[in-house]
């Protein structure tokens, strides 16, 4: 694996939830005029990850685990509360840590119905960024847009149309063209195929495979669909309640998941039943705890079949178990250590 390209170092993001009017009043009365400290949503907790140049990293997890927030931090849309994101050694944020200055990371969003402005013709939507950043002079924009439209498999003549004249799959192609027109080095895709039908989803997955080959893109691919991630990604990071619990090259992760959560998640995915056998589900018991009040120690301990007393007290760190394979689990680490002796 080549040198790390996009690197996030102990990134955390906490959102404060302002108390409602009633809660504020109750606090005032209870505390004689003083308000309680604000409630914090721990969306992302000290996450470190790195993506090599040309690598496609999959980020999987259930809703509410913080994967979209992490994606937005890596793109520079959200400033992290703590930690830093560097691309090729340079911070993607301004010196004051607020405004995003880097066009080298671009994003494709989940819902192509919401991410395209309905009042702007798609040609202008694609040209706007590159012209503003001086990638192309405004008199050359038309040809530039035509190139990118044909690159994503759309008719260049579509540039004069409005988003509502396209289907969901075509809109997602437009959103991809808009991101690529900025000539990014890293593309962050947040559930780009989740809202599409199976047959259209396959078309977009193929588009990503081709773009990856032709443009040697570095990608972060956020998805809850473990099948799609397996198909597209070189490496996978699994998130649970704001933390990365396992990170591994794709095939070994699916073959032998180390973290109990990864194992449970993989077992939950329904497989195509081709014979008369009865499918045995092994669902994870319980539900995702609230990020407003994360449990002590390992966040998964309440649902984990292997939990030990230590898991309730101590937060497991992401540690290497094998070359390239990291997991944050006391039990898995102890097992590996025992096997090595």
């Amino acid at each position, binding site marked *: 694996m080549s040198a790390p390209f996009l690197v996030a170092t102990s990134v955390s993001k906490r959102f404060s939830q302002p108390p409602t009017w009633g809660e504020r009043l109750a606090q005032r009365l209870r505390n004689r005029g003083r308000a309680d400290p604000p409630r914090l949503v721990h969306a992302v907790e000290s996450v470190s990850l790195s993506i090599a140049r040309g690598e496609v990293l999959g980020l999987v997890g*259930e*809703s509410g685990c913080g994967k979209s927030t992490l994606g937005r931090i890596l793109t520079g849309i959200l400033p992290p509360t703590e930690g830093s994101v560097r691309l090729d050694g340079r911070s993607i944020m301004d010196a004051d840590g607020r405004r995003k200055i880097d066009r080298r990371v671009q994003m494709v969003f989940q819902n192509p119905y919401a991410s395209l402005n309905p009042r702007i013709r798609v040609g202008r939507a694609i040209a706007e960024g590159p012209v503003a950043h001086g990638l192309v002079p405004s008199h050359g924009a038309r040809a530039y847009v035509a190139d990118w439209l044909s690159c994503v498999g759309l008719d260049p003549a579509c540039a004069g149309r409005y988003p509502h004249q396209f*289907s969901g*799959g075509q809109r997602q192609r437009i959103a991809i063209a808009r991101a690529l027109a900025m000539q990014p080095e890293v593309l962050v895709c947040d559930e780009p195929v989740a809202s599409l*039908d*199976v*047959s*259209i*989803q*396959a*078309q977009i*997955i*193929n588009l990503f*495979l*081709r773009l990856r080959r032709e443009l040697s893109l570095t990608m972060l691919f956020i998805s*809850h669909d*473990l*099948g*799609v991630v*397996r*198909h*597209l990604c070189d490496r996978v990071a699994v998130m649970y309640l704001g933390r990365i619990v396992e990170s591994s090259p*794709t*095939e070994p992760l699916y073959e032998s998941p180390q973290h109990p959560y990864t194992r*449970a*998640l993989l*077992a*939950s*995915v*329904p*497989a*195509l*039943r*081709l*014979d*008369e056998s009865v*499918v045995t*589900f*092994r*669902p*994870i018991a319980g*539900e*995702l705890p609230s990020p407003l009040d994360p449990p002590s120690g390992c966040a998964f301990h309440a649902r984990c079949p292997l939990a030990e007393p230590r898991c309730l007290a101590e937060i497991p760190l992401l540690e290497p178990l094998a070359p390239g394979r990291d997991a944050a689990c006391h039990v898995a680490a102890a097992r590996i250590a025992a096997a090595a002796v």
Partner: protein
Amino acid sequence: MTPLLEVTDLATHFLTRAGAMKAVDGVSFQLAPGQVLGLVGESGSGKTVTGFSLLRLIEPPGRIVRGAIRFEGQDLAALDERAMRRVRGKRLSMVFQDPMMTLNPVLTILQQMTLALRAHGRLPLPRIKDRCVEVLTLVGIPGAAGRLDAYPHEFSGGMRQRVAIAIALLHEPSLIVADEPTTALDVSVQAQILAEMRDLVGRLGTSLIWISHDLATVSSLADRIAVMYAGRIVEQGPTSQLLRRPRHPYTRGLLDSLPSRTPPGRELPHIPGMMPSLLALPPGCAYAPRCPRADARCAAAPEPTALGAVVLRCHHPLEASAS
């Protein structure tokens, strides 16, 4: 065995200013007591409208324009609204996709369940409470007795869908139509609900129509699968046979586009193009413009034909050999 439900040539059209939108156009299928039918299709294929038509939940400009829905000895398509209300929710009930939209946010769980119970007869409150606790426990809500006075927002997405399923079960219907009930949920919660659902229908002997776009989910639950495309069932048959040896090119195309069936990193065999607009369906087979096997014969609409255990609409079915 006499079928519990027999749908014959059902057609539901939406009469819009741009013309008749044929959302469902000639759907026929049967369902035996205790059987689970998976109704599969992409968005716009008419699977949800089929489900809504069974419960007569179609609102203008939509209308059931022809066909019969024989259920427990009556033709639901011909019933007047009063008679339909006695069946709906009692013998035949529905679970919808989004549990946040189907539960009333300003009523407690008990109030909503009371409404559903009293719609079909008077019951004293203690009996109502007992019945509610009973079904809520059945669908796996822990400590049900203590949650009766909770509002829907106090439940998580998975728990809310369980409440919706519990309401559907209140009157012990003989058929439940479930429209994408796990699509809005996470995989781990989906697995819980699938396991519970299969256990429930097995125990109660309820028939189930499970509408979904996801072949894998359906395959884990259904005895039979019907695949819809542009308002018609293009292929139906026993689950394992249909998935192992699809005869219709569309079923085959859908199965092939699943990432799990192609080695990672390899290009997926996708179906070119997209579903035609329901306002301007091509004459003949609606799949022909995307079909690799289409020829001049496909300009005439194929009629449903039985080939062994499967029924399909295709002039050029695939060989019965394993895919």
